[in-house]
């Protein structure tokens, strides 16, 4: 029987080292134009990949999720705050769930 605390320690250590190494080691501004551009595009790609199509499955019902997705897109297009977009789309998912 392996020890649960050693498991937790291994998980936490590996995860922390992955997070900390680049941030603590890279102090200089990267000058290489390609690499700078690559880093610039990273958040847009990762956030898009994580959002879609996962958003359609997260509520357990494609119809409510689709409504939430569309509401979020519209509010984001209107440049509403993060909290507003997140809360209003949650409320719309809940309300749609009462009907369907």
């Amino acid at each position: 029987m392996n020890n649960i605390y050693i498991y937790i320690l291994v998980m936490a250590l590996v995860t922390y080292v992955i997070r900390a190494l680049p941030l603590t080691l890279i102090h200089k501004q990267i000058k290489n134009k390609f690499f700078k551009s690559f880093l610039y595009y990273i958040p847009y790609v990762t956030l898009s990949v994580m959002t879609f199509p996962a958003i359609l499955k997260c509520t357990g019902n494609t119809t409510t999720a689709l409504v939430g997705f569309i509401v979020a897109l519209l509010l984001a297009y209107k440049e509403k705050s993060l909290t507003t977009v997140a809360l209003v789309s949650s409320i719309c998912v809940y309300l749609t769930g009462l009907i369907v």
Partner: protein
Amino acid sequence: MVVSKIELWKKGFKDAIPIGLGYFAVSLTFGLQCGIAELGIFEATLLSFSNLTSAGQFGGLELIVAQASYFEMAFTQFILNLRYVLMSTALSQKLDSKTSIPHRMLVSHGITDEIFGISMAVKGKLAPYYSYGAMSCAIPCWTLGTLTGASIGNILPPDILNALSIAIYGMFIAIIIPPAKQNKTILFVVILSMVTSLLFEVLPVLNLISSGFKIIVVTIIIASLAAYFFPVQEDTYE
């Protein structure tokens, strides 16, 4: 204008409220799973507090149940969380180059998909106190969610939990859409990324790739292509 540390902290905390809500819902599910896997309440809570990552924890819990080797655990965590290397590298350019090592080490623990998202969306350079504000909201929510799930089971009705689980995605959308509106290249990158992500979900063979690894593969390919064809002009992070 110099913004005080407390103001930065408050801004980070406020921006992280949707993260906190989403985290509570997801983390509660994790706590429930821990209960099913017969982990103690303390162990489950400690696990969430120290790891602060969803995919890694759910994956790790399966390995704990299977009594996998410690090496297997380390390797799986490495693969599931490798995307943080990309995020941490991007953040290294977003921080002021004079930011001290202790600040960098603290900010590092808060690198999650969501906190990374709001940190990169900050105008200008990222101040560590903004990250601390975001962490002060997100970490307690993540930890308390697991504590709640593991100790008293599912207190929220499933309808409300399901509704809350869209909060994090809503926040991601609120981060990527406004810049995509201004900049055609970003819009193109966003659409291409979503379509590629969908293909990885539906095409045979590709759909066998784990979600953590998919993020790495798609990010490297699309960000490289975008950097090659649409290089960004000076001072991207100013």
